[in-house]
């Protein structure tokens, strides 16, 4: 194997390892920020890791009447997130796997995970599972136009929808980032990231009140190792999406070569960016309440218009 290829493989491995190791920590940081702002002490940032460890040691449960769909959904969910973590340009813009999947493919992979979990919810045959699945698919279906429209706005100006090219594009001309089109696309994507990862005001990640939940209702029957996988997957989704947002709209620091020094800097910078964004998101959530389910379409319609404006505005405002 030639030296650049080896370096590339190493970069992918390091990136993947960091995302997997860092995702539960990100969740821990966000919970800690929220706890402190609400005047609680908080469990510490490593608590999600301890939870995962504990759950992984427990036996999984197959509820009566469930099938292979229920059993394999957590694996599909984690696998789709891992694939995104391997192909997206977090550390460097020229990772060897970059041509494998572009922005649209990444969006489709996320949707694959959502669909798998919704099927698992339906497979349990309980009212909660069905309710969670129905709501999750509603939100995902309505979020799809916004994501692709924002993707349209981003890729139209760069001439490619490959993630590496997109990040390099904003790196090369930073004025794009603060142009109206760039800002609108950033807001639109931020809203759908909140919707896709089940954050406020769309879903409450810490709720356990059945009638208000979306994500938690689908995973109610999971236990032990399966539950650990589901928890890990939702942390991974949050991390990969925040990382993508960070590099698309605040691209500074990302390596454009495969030089070890640049890669190390890229790694540290992306970790810092994602942690800061996570903390900001958690702090923002303190001031938000969950919206009624039937107002969520209004929110998503709003973010869709942001996406359309991001495309339109780029015609007449630089």
């Amino acid at each position: 194997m030639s030296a650049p290829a080896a370096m590339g493989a190493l970069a992918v491995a390091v990136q993947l390892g960091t995302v997997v190791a860092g995702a539960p920590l990100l969740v821990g940081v966000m919970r800690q920020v929220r706890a402190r702002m609400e005047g609680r002490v908080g469990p510490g940032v490593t608590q999600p890791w301890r939870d995962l460890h504990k759950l992984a040691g427990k036996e999984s449960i197959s509820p009566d009447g469930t099938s292979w769909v229920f059993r394999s959904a957590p694996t599909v969910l984690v696998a789709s997130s891992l694939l995104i973590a391997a192909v997206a340009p977090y550390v460097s813009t020229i990772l060897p796997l970059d041509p494998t999947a572009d922005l649209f493919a990444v969006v489709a992979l996320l949707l694959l995970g959502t669909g798998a979990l919704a099927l698992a919810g339906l497979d349990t045959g309980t009212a909660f599972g069905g309710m969670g699945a129905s709501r999750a698919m509603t939100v995902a279906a309505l979020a799809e136009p916004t994501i692709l429209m924002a993707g349209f706005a981003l890729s139209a100006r760069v001439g490619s929808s490959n993630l590496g090219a997109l990040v390099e594009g904003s790196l090369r001309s930073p004025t794009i980032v603060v142009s109206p089109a760039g800002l609108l696309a950033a807001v639109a994507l931020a809203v759908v990231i909140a919707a896709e990862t089940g954050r406020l005001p769309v879903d409450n990640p810490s709720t356990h009140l059945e009638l208000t939940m979306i994500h938690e209702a689908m995973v109610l029957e999971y236990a032990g190792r399966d539950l650990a996988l589901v928890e890990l997957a939702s942390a991974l989704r949050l991390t990969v999406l925040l990382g993508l947002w960070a590099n698309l709209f605040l691209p500074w620091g990302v390596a454009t070569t495969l030089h070890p020094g640049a890669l190390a800097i890229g790694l540290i910078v992306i970790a810092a960016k994602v942690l800061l964004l996570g903390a900001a998101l958690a702090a923002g959530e303190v001031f938000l309440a969950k919206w009624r389910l039937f107002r969520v379409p209004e929110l998503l319609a709003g973010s869709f218009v942001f996406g359309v404006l991001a495309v339109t505005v780029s015609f007449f405002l630089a």
Partner: protein
Amino acid sequence: MSLLGAALSLMIGAASVGVTAGLLAPVTVRAGLVGAMTAVTGLGGAVVGAAALAGHRLVLDLPHLLPLSRLVISVDPLSGVFLLIVGGTAIAAGVYAVGYSSHPDHGPGDPTEPGHGVASRTSQAALPAFVAAMLLVPIAANVTTFLVFWELMALASLVLVLAEHRARAEVREAGIWYAAMTHAGLVVILLGLVVFAGAAGGESFAAMRLAAPELSPATRSIVFCLTFAGFASKAGVVPLHVWLPRAHPEAPSHVSALMSSAMVTLGLYGILRVAFDLLGGGPSWWGVLMLVVGALSAVYGVLQAFVATDLKRLLAYSTTENVGLMLVGVGAAGLFGADGNRTLAGLLLAAALLHAVNHAAFKTLLFLVAGSVLRSTGLRDLDRMGGLVARMPLTTALAAVGALCAAALPPGNGFVSEWLLLQGLTHSLSAQGSVHVLTAVLMPLAVGVVALTAGLGVATFVKAFGVGFLARARSPEAGHAVESPRTMTAGMVFAAAGCAALAVAPTLAAGPLTRIIATLPSLTGRAESPPVGGDAITLRLAGIQGSMSPALIALGLAVAAAVVAIAPRHRRARRPAPIWGCGGNRLNPRMEYTATSFAEPLTRVFDDVLHPEEDVDVTHHRESRYLIESVQFRHRVDDRIEARLYPPLIAAVSGWGRYARRAQNGSVHRYLGYGFVGLLLVLVVVGVSA
């Protein structure tokens, strides 16, 4: 004899044997023979198609077969892709039909019993005829030949739709709708082609192609509008789609598969052949028209599919959606072709054609799966299905493959063509220096439509698969389901294999697609580079820095899943446990979410478009108003376009019919008199004009 000739003779020969067998063979072997012959016909067609896509061509001119005209056949790459679609579908449907029609219930017995009609002589003989007609339509090379085969296809499919007419009244209604729509379509196509051939001074496609540039713009546009309307009605495009959600559910399932995957796609073939090949492209408003109609169909189709509770109706509406997506691609290709941006036009047309192939593969699979469920349980209503994963494991697994592909999620095949379509649409703005205002306004809307369709499509197929096959049985019929016989599963496995091949190796289609586009004069540039290229693994696009490799995504998912499944091994085995029932442990199937309840949130969101009807009837107890005896809740979502558009039309037609009835009084002499007067008039007109 060339390969093409041999395959063509195989196709015709097998179809003739099949028709004869359907008419003459005893009932014990009839279904097996007809099914096998249908599959062989399809095989012959597929071989012709594959050879045509590889670059072989063939022109046959048989002057004496048709009265007043000649039978002309020409095989080129554009017809090749549609031959491949029809042939592939026919192989799966033919094999499947063997088991489906020789169901024990389908034997001689009570003719009103459901499923009886499939095994009858008429419907058995119509099946190979239908397949042969569909295979001949794309290779017909003059107007008469084309129309003869087109009509043969329509009649054979009508006979097949009516197969179970004794058992259910809805079949008869569906048949009437289908017959009316398909013949209205035929009349319009006939008019369009006659105007075209008249202006071109010849009815062979070659002559029309040569003469097309000299025609006046008005004639060209009239021809385009007429033929587009006719072909769009066959393709099930909104608002001409009304026959589709009636006829497809009522037809036997392998016929539904053939109609939905192959016949509907031939509507697209007609549009491509006339607008892009014979007319050689047109002004940009043609493209805009196709784009807008396609976008409407895509969104309306997927919305109706999402709220449908009848599995086959859901699949029928999903066909409207997918044809809509293809038309979006074709329309955008027309728009850019008219603008002179040929690379982009080629890419979009390639996306549309690939989507046609992909759609045929997964829709065949899904209709066959629906047929297996129907045959085993007698159910089409999703609200009464469920629990099939335990009773019909193989069918459920195949349904999962079909749903994944139809939902356009990776690693399915539908994803690849939708990805190409999105690439073509999004890069419309960056590819040119200055953006045409029409492009600038239409492309964001088109991307929004495709995205909404994609999102709702995922929700639709999560619903269809999750509610239909998973969880516990919602009715006794579903609880007693049994797996289908081998021939049926073989047909389904063949379709699933097609999906898998298309999903993993779409790059193989790049060469043939380039060859097709090279035959369309409006889209070929001088320095032609293939619109879609790439090595064996990665799909690359011309003029756009875009790439994606479906094979690597599938491989990556598999590797990641394997790592997750193996890595931190749980110490103890999986334990079965009762489901949490909120403290009580008496969960029954009535507590499960149904298809209707699953769709409820989005039905509410799209309230303004769908206008669901809801009735609540509360029956009070006889002794006290405060006690309730029963509550009835009914919820139905009608096709609003049909409810708004068609009643006035039907009223007008039947009013006209009442008027025309005065001419009919039962006197034979008067009827003969009409003929006599007609003859005299014709003679006078001819005499005067001469």
